[in-house]
């Protein structure tokens, strides 16, 4: 049942065929019944006319014979009655039997009774309503009825009656009952033919509809298939246009759209390639003069003690800013690699705990300058992972540097948790924290939580965004939590084998120490 509903909902062809068949069924039904009723009325009318003529002559003959038998003895009258019945029934053909019934009129009290029905026909086959009309009328009266026989069985029939006077016996009602069995058979036959014709007609209509619908639906289905493949990235797909009808108009329109889309995509791809190439070239071209600059500044810096205070300070600033410039250049280059999707992973086996500790040690001095400290806690002494160590180190350094920047002279807690399948590193600081707006944008490029805040470490503004890309490149995830004034929590989760995906989060993003 569900399948049928599904088909109705999802197949245009099925829908059209179903509604056509239902509508045709109504039309066939109406014409069939009209035809049926016309035919049966027609047949009955023909029969009625001939039956009335036959009955009239039979009854007339009977009346005439009874008239001749006037004044005869009772047994002669009996003979006449039998004769009348015999002649009336003998006339009948095999197919269309007819019976004769004599019923004594009520109020007739003569001692002799000629009440009789031929061939064991039950006299009750004559409806009382007909009897009443026969008594009132002087002419013939007829009515359809069922012919019931005493041994059982019945056939449809037509009863025609009139009053007659039987000598010495008074008033009787004489009925001729015609069997309509043959007519019923004919009508039944016609009905079954009508039914069969109707069914065949419906099947033909369904077939024709299917053929017609297919002509329309097939190209539509084809268009849908091509559109799907187009969406999947095969931009060369085109519809076949073979005719001049509306379907071909659809095909032309679709192909034009596909053409224009393909061009647009190619144009955009080219544009992004050119742009990416440009960024990459610029970065590379900048490297050589930057190298010269750096060395020159180092040479100047190394002899800054021989300069006066302002020149000496300028040399320091020069070196520091070149450092910053270089970091920015590196980050830009990395971002352009991510954008061009050419960043590749070089997975090696290494110990995550050792790496975290090393990063923490490297940044310990910076942390000390900012009057904070990094505490590393691991559930296991060694956690081996297979990942791109350069990228993981960069993520960790970015997270730690970010925490140091915002620690507000409170300690930083780093925890490492591992399962069979995943490894997670949580970096928790208790400093300025992040509000909801900041949380949605913290991984955005060049976004700063508070523009007025001094960025003493001279970060590039790309660190966290690169960290997120690095994590995703490992099929991992990097998430941030924070509350204003309550610090922040960054959780890095990586699969222990980089080509797998994360099974579950090992460190809850909302830190356990936080109570709302």
């Amino acid at each position, binding site marked *: 049942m569900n399948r049928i509903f599904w088909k109705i909902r999802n197949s245009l062809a099925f829908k059209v065929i179903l509604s056509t068949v239902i509508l045709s069924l109504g039309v066939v039904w109406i014409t069939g019944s009209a035809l049926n009723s016309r035919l049966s009325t027609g047949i009955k009318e023909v029969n009625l006319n001939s039956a009335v003529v036959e009955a009239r002559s039979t009854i007339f003959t009977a009346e005439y014979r009874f008239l001749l038998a006037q004044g005869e003895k009772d047994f002669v009258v009996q003979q006449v009655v039998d004769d009348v019945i015999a002649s009336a029934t003998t006339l009948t053909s095999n197919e269309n039997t007819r019976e004769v019934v004599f019923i004594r009129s009520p109020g007739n009290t003569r001692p002799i009774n000629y009440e009789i029905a031929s061939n064991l026909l039950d006299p009750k086959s004559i409806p009382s309503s007909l009897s009443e009309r026969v008594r009132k009328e002087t002419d013939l009266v007829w009515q359809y009825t069922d012919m019931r026989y005493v041994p059982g069985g019945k056939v449809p029939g037509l009863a025609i009656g009139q009053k007659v006077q039987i000598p010495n016996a008074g008033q009787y009602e004489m009925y001729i009952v015609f069997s309509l069995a043959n007519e019923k058979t004919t009508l039944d036959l016609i009905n079954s033919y009508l039914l069969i014709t109707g069914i065949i007609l419906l099947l033909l209509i369904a077939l024709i509809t299917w053929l017609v619908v297919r002509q329309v639906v097939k190209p539509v289905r084809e268009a849908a298939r091509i559109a799907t493949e187009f969406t999947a990235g095969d931009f060369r797909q085109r519809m076949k246009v073979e005719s001049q009808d509306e379907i071909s108009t659809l095909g032309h329109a679709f192909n034009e759209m596909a053409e224009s889309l393909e061009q647009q995509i190619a144009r955009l791809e080219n544009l992004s390639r050119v742009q990416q190439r440009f960024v990459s070239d610029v970065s*590379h*071209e900048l*490297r050589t*003069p*930057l190298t010269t600059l*750096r*060395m020159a500044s*180092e*040479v100047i810096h190394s002899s800054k003690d021989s300069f006066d205070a302002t020149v000496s300070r300028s040399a320091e600033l020069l070196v520091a800013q070149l450092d910053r410039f270089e970091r920015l250049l590196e980050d830009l280059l990395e971002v352009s690699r991510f954008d061009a999707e050419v960043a590749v992973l070089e997975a090696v*086996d290494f110990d995550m705990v050792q790496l975290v500790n090393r990063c923490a040690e490297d940044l310990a001095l910076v942390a000390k300058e900012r009057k904070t400290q990094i505490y590393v806690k691991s559930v296991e002494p060694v956690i081996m992972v297979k990942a791109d160590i350069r990228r993981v180190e960069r993520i960790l350094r970015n997270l730690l540097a970010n925490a140091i920047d915002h620690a507000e002279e409170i300690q930083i807690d780093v925890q490492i948790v591992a399962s069979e399948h995943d490894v997670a590193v949580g970096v928790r600081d208790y400093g300025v924290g992040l509000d909801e707006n900041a949380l949605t944008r913290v991984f955005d490029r060049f976004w700063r939580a508070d523009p007025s805040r001094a960025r003493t470490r001279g970060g590039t503004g790309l660190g966290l965004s690169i960290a997120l890309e690095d994590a995703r490149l490992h099929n991992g995830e990097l998430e941030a939590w924070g509350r204003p004034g309550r610090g922040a929590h960054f959780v890095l989760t990586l699969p222990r084998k980089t080509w797998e995906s994360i099974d579950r989060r090992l460190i809850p993003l909302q830190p356990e120490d936080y109570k709302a």
Partner: protein
Amino acid sequence: MTLVMVVDDDQDLAEMLGIVLTGAGIDVDLVSRGDEVMDVFHNNPPDLVLLDVMLPGLDGIEVCKLIRAESMVPIVMLSAKGDTQDVVRGLEAGADDYMVKPFRHPSELIARIRTRLRRTNADVSGLLTIGDLAIDVQAHQVLRAGKQIQLTRLEFDLLVALAKEPGRVFTRDALLSEVWGYRHSTDTRLVNVHVQRLRSKIEHDAEHPEIVITIRGVGYKAGVMGGS
């Protein structure tokens, strides 16, 4: 005096490199085109070559192959691209080490040059054996059945580092610090490429190494094959 050949097409950078190296007491030969390198090399053989990858005339990688074909002199590549492919191509062409522009500090460059020039394993004396190889550390020779195998100074250092502590498993980081003089380097490509190059010279079948054995997930160690 030590002589370093600096091959770079950027005049300013070459001059700056000259200033820095001269300041560190190193003589410098400046070459600006790739196709001029071999002439200068023959006329005045340097102790070390500092070679830029992108050069007019002849590509730095091709130059590196040419030098390697006739000399075991240490080669340090300079690359403006930190891309893996460039670096690996340079190392495979025979470079011992590489530096990505811009360098963190000029002192870092000088340190690298000094590491490549210094006599490592001065503490080791006499003959070492590893597999069926005999190593004469003083004479800087590797012999198999009396026949000498030509190794670059770096490959030699790598082999000696492994051979002098047979059985010890060296992590890649440990080798980087021991042979290249790096602390805290995470670039293990250097080790991987040079182990491959070393194997291609000393192993009977580089696909199934018996002298420098990989310990999966850890690093390398010297094989303890019989036959020494």
